[in-house]
């Protein structure tokens, strides 16, 4: 039986075609990897903001005293300090003494929860440059606040997605008002 071989030209063409295919596949996989990374980053930002808002909506309502109250002319704050119960499953109306502070750390730029001035928990990483605003709207209940957290997902622009991720939640305090009368 006669075995048919390949010519040198055929071999060169085959190598060239497979090279093009491999390069195309490589670029496709790099592109897909980049997109996956961007989506993972956006998901991280979303879940960290969600976690922070969830923590606030559980910790703030049973508060017993606000140490950074809103006044008749103060409608926005970028940090919130208050006293509340130590254990969120054992509330003490009007008598919680544990100090909580939600604020941006000026060094790390992270959104942190500080308990009793010594224990710190990072809620949103500093690399996402989070911003937090506690807003009291005029003509709403004196015990109601809106918390807005904005974070930056810088890579999202590469996919045409908005770079800012913003989430907001309303919080109603049970035992106290957030406004201190003048």
């Amino acid at each position: 039986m006669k075995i048919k071989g390949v010519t040198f030209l055929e071999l060169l063409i085959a190598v060239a075609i497979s090279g093009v295919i491999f390069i195309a596949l490589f670029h496709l996989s790099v592109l897909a990897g980049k997109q996956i990374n961007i989506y993972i980053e956006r998901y991280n930002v979303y879940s960290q903001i969600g976690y922070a808002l969830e923590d606030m909506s559980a910790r703030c309502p049973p508060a017993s005293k606000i140490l950074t109250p809103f006044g008749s002319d103060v409608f926005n704050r970028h940090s919130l300090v208050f006293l509340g119960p130590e254990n969120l499953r054992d509330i003490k109306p009007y008598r919680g003494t544990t100090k909580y502070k939600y604020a941006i750390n000026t060094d790390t730029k992270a959104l942190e929860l500080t308990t009793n001035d010594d224990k710190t928990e990072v809620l949103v990483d500093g690399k996402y440059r989070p911003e937090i605003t506690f807003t009291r709207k005029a003509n709403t209940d004196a015990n109601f606040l809106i918390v807005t957290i904005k974070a930056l997902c810088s890579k999202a622009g590469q996919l045409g997605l908005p770079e800012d991720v913003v989430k907001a939640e309303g919080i109603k305090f049970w035992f106290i008002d957030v406004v201190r009368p003048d």
Partner: protein
Amino acid sequence: MIAVMLGVLITISSLMLAFFLAVANVSYIVETDFMSKAKKNAVMHSFYVAQLQYRAKNFVAPAASHPPKKLDTTAGYLRKNGNGPYNNLTYNITIDSHENIKSQVKIE
């Protein structure tokens, strides 16, 4: 040709095996996440009810040395993920003589 066919067959069968092995874990993770979320929401809801009753003076602290007062409430039925059976979600809120309000959530 046979080697290529064998390769494709092995790849497909390993992918299918990995998928079927992962299904149980994924469902467990989703179920656990769902239950913990449901419990957390129930705790928040129970405290919401408790503070309303407390401020309305319907849920007052017992006298010293008396056992804590209870407020048993049911939050209704909770559907398991994936159209499974229904579970009854109940919580009981207690207030002791020091006016400490506690909540216990139970899913049957």
